[in-house]
């Protein structure tokens, strides 16, 4: 009995070590390919930068009025843009070559390859989704924050945080779904979280602007204004348009332009 257990364990360990031994060269090939191509990319970017700087590429470009390209360049330098494109092209090439080498190091019917290769590809996709989601969350959060502050909403930060977490939760759910982790649990949790955030935001906005809504309803219900109590059109406009508010309360309004 003991001998059988020892034999089973020995066999199992042998199988794992063999699999690991066959797995490591592929992984090493992937890393080497990425490192070498990254180094080549850095060198190429350096050479390109020096050549273009010597050739006064930026100045020539500015003279030809290609404003769109210049606007998108880092630090408004087309030279830096070209150098970065070259560097990242090499890095991407290294990753592709590495994955290809990793794939080739296994037999076509290998069980590990069948699981690992698609998972590796999915991981790259998930990382891209995560980066895009984070960037979009930050952009939307700032847009909402600035817009809400300029509309003088007291709960601007809360609204902005709500939007940010809404997008981040959506991104996290997409990443997990892409990696096929969690299955139904993730979908359910996402539904609850997303719904919760939307409900919270709706309540916050609804409660925060109830005065505005009630004034609006009053105005609709009773179209006949009484001079002493009913708000003037200027006052209503001021409520709805905060930046016009200081101006409209005076006989002489502010003219910004």
């Amino acid at each position: 009995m003991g001998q059988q257990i020892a034999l089973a364990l020995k066999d199992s360990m042998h199988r794992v070590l063999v699999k690991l031994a066959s797995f490591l060269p592929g992984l090493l090939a992937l890393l080497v390919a990425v490192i070498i191509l990254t180094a080549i990319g850095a060198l190429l970017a350096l050479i390109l930068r020096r050549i273009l700087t010597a050739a006064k590429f930026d100045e020539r470009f500015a003279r030809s009025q290609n404003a769109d390209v210049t606007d998108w360049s880092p630090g408004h330098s087309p030279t830096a843009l070209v150098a970065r494109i070259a560097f990242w092209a090499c890095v991407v090439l290294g990753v592709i070559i590495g994955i290809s080498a990793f794939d080739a190091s296994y037999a076509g019917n290998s069980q590990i390859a069948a699981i690992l290769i698609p998972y590796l590809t999915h991981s790259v996709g998930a990382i891209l989704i995560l980066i895009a989601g984070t960037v979009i969350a930050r952009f939307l959060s700032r847009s909402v924050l600035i817009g809400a502050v300029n509309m003088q909403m007291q709960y601007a930060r809360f609204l902005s945080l709500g939007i940010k977490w809404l997008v981040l939760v959506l991104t996290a759910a997409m990443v997990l779904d892409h990696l096929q982790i969690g299955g139904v649990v993730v979908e359910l949790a996402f539904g609850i979280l997303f719904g919760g955030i939307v409900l919270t935001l709706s309540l916050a906005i609804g409660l925060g602007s109830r005065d505005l809504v009630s004034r609006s309803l009053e105005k609709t219900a009773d179209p006949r204004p009484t001079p002493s109590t009913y708000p003037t059109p200027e006052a209503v406009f001021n409520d709805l348009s905060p930046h016009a508010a200081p101006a409209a309360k005076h006989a002489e309004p502010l003219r910004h332009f």
Partner: protein
Amino acid sequence: MSSTQTVLESAVSDPASSGLLISLSPLHGNALEATLANLAQAFPNQLIDVTTPDPIPPTPASSLRVTTYTPTAPALAGWILTAADYVNTYKRMQNHQSTACLLLGPEAQSLAPDALRALADQVVVGNADLASPRYSLSPRDGLINSAILYPVTRALFGTRPRYPQAIDLAFSLRAANRLAACAQKFTAANQTAAFIWPVAEAAAAGFTIAEVPVGLRALPPPDALDLNSLLAQVAGSFFADLDAKASFWQRSRLAYSPRDAAALTRAMPAQSDDSAMSEQPDVQPMIDSFRLAYINLHEIWSLVLPPNSLLGLKKLSIMPPTAFRMPDSLWARIVYDFVLAYRLRTINRGHLLGALTPLYLAWVASHLLLSSGTSAETLSPDKHIEALAAAFETDKPYLVARWRWPDRFNP
């Protein structure tokens, strides 16, 4: 291009073409008749070509030769002169073989005949390349101009015109050519409603610029309904133009010493002249807006502004409304830092201009309070704006240094 022509010369004693073309923007209702009447009064003994996109009304006999035109480049903004206006005007000048042009914007009927004449004379007689009007506006009007456009243009380009984005201009043929060439870049990209900055353009070209007081003028309301859109539109275009002309304004020298200008401003008596606002403005909503923004936008401002400016804003946020004063040096530094951030794309440009709005409102509140009080420090609006412009001039080396070496300091 010209579709109709009407010559009314019966009242002309000695009609002689002055080479002046008067170009009108679309005018509504009786505005065209009123404008033509003013022009006839302004130029009584000269044969003047006038072009308008509107149907020509029956006018009393005068020396005006009125023609209609169909604009070659569409999309007139209706409240400001756009790239399309400059391109169209230059083409009409070529068609009429004019040597000078008086380009009048919307609501031009509110300009007095003397003002029209004086504006044209600066170019025709005074040989200036560009004549810019100085409107007599209320202290509550043209606040973006007072806060940003005028002081920055004056500091960077060394020019004096009070309205760098005036909607009436007189210019010579070569100035028209320059402005049209600049506008052509936008119209070629189908951006016919883009803004052109004539004073900066003339300064960069080394043209002679004159300023003419024209008195009162009704200004057409901007297209943008809210302040955020308006500020983003105007300041965005202005900052982009500064970026395009950086090689010029980094080299340009002022024609006078900023220190002398500041001393002159200080020497002015501490008020009370007619331009001061007698009525205390309600600035509380603007101050509230700034305070709300200080709580919420501090993180975004800290990406753009240096610690000193943030400290200044902190002090401002806790000031009581009666003592709410934004120092001129602080506002100058804020505007310069936003110009730099616009250039460097420190944050998204839409966000950047949105984050400027509460700061601008704080400046407006401070300006209105400073101009309307009765204390010893009260200044007339004009004097305050002149002092502000001097502060921008004094701080110009900061902008130039950071423009050239932006990485030396990161807030």
